[in-house]
């Protein structure tokens, strides 16, 4: 009786361990080998080459251990090849960040008036946005110098970028891009800042290859959409 019970408990523990391991990695899928990864990223670049522009709504959740509740922001993202990006937040405040041919402008909307900031963080933001644009085109070549890259294939494909530099890892543990398998569309970004702090950005209502007005990316007088 005792031995039967002991064996049952042992089986239960092993089964639980398997389930935990599968849950941890089963969600993320199987990690691809370097050759498979290269093939995956090449396929991604090819598929995304047909996308000339897109617009998508996003919802950003900021989870910090010091904050009682996460901060939720909503906005719109616009992108046009080869090098235009607009990141606009309309809730709970209004702000527009535009990257256009290596130039960066930032705006706020105050009492309904668009005001261009004399933005002091242009250089840093330029590098960040250039990186984001590369990823949106499925190009991770430049990122290989800064990040170790792993691709997990499963129900949702995941590209995991981990900073190589220890100094960078003090502020950023990893970035995960969640990609739809058939279309290679970016569905979600997960920025892990520490073991507990993270930012989750979910994209929805994505529309591609539209007639986007030029003024969406204007560096001085952009059109205010929302």
């Amino acid at each position, binding site marked *: 009786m005792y031995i039967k019970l002991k064996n049952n408990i042992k089986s239960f523990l092993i089964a639980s361990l398997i389930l935990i391991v599968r849950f941890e990695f089963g969600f993320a899928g199987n990690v691809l080998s370097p050759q498979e990864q290269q093939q995956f990223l090449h396929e991604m670049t090819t598929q995304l080459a047909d996308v000339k522009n897109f617009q998508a709504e996003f919802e950003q959740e*900021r989870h*910090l251990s*010091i*904050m*009682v*509740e996460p*901060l939720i922001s909503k906005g719109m993202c616009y992108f046009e090849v080869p090098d235009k990006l607009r*990141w606009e*937040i309309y809730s*709970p*405040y209004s*702000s527009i*960040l535009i990257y256009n041919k290596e130039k960066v402008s*930032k705006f*706020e909307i105050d009492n309904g008036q668009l005001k261009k*900031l*004399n*933005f*002091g*963080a242009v250089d840093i933001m330029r590098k*960040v946005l250039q990186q984001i644009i590369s990823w949106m085109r499925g190009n991770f070549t430049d990122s290989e110098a800064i990040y170790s890259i792993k691709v997990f294939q499963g129900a949702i494909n995941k590209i995991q970028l981990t900073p190589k530099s220890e100094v960078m890892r003090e*502020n*950023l543990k990893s970035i995960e891009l969640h990609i739809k398998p058939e279309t290679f569309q970016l569905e979600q970004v997960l*920025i892990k*800042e520490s073991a507990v702090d993270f*930012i989750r950005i979910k994209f929805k209502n994505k529309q591609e290859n539209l007639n986007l007005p030029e003024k969406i990316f204007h560096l001085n007088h952009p059109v205010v959409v929302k």
Partner: protein
Amino acid sequence: MKIRIISILFFYFFVISCTVKLSLPKGEKVCAGLTQKNLWQLENQYPKSFQLTQRILLSVSGKEYDFIGSLTMRQDSVFRAVALGEMGGTFLDIKHETDTVSILKNSGNLPENPLLDGVVGDILYLFSFSRGNKKLASSFHNEQLHVQLSDSINETTILIFEKNNLIASEQIIDGQLVRKAQYSNYIKSVVSGCPLPGRILLENKKWRYTLKIDLLKIIQIPE
């Protein structure tokens, strides 16, 4: 003669009680109750322990930097203030306890003096008001209540209220104007029920920067 002297003295003290200090505009004699009411509201507009989420625009040396601020304030002016980048990252993390200030993170490598003297002082000035034992003088002028609070050493604070809301303040230390603030866009706090400024414009005259602080959220937290 005696009655005359007493009358003169009485008149003198009556005039003194209605007269404002040099830095306040001359105005009508103000009802003490109105002053006390406004000061009480100012002392109680924030709960004893709370967390604010704010959108902040810092203007310094001709440049502007925007970020999200998270301020957790507890009793006895114990607080933790964090400045977050809109797209990620923590630029600044400061902890203030009764007698000590710790800079937990300073990714922007901001110089220490403006941080410790400037930012910490700004936070205590804006979010931790207490009348304490300061001397008080007040006057009513153009529908605005002007209140002057002075401690026995070197600090004077001037508060200007309009329709029971604080609209402006100044802090003078050792005869120098250190801080000026304007308060606007009042909203009713879901936590205290008191009106809270939705926007604060703070000029730090000593360290020469301006903060535009827009309130996004306030949460009461356990003490």
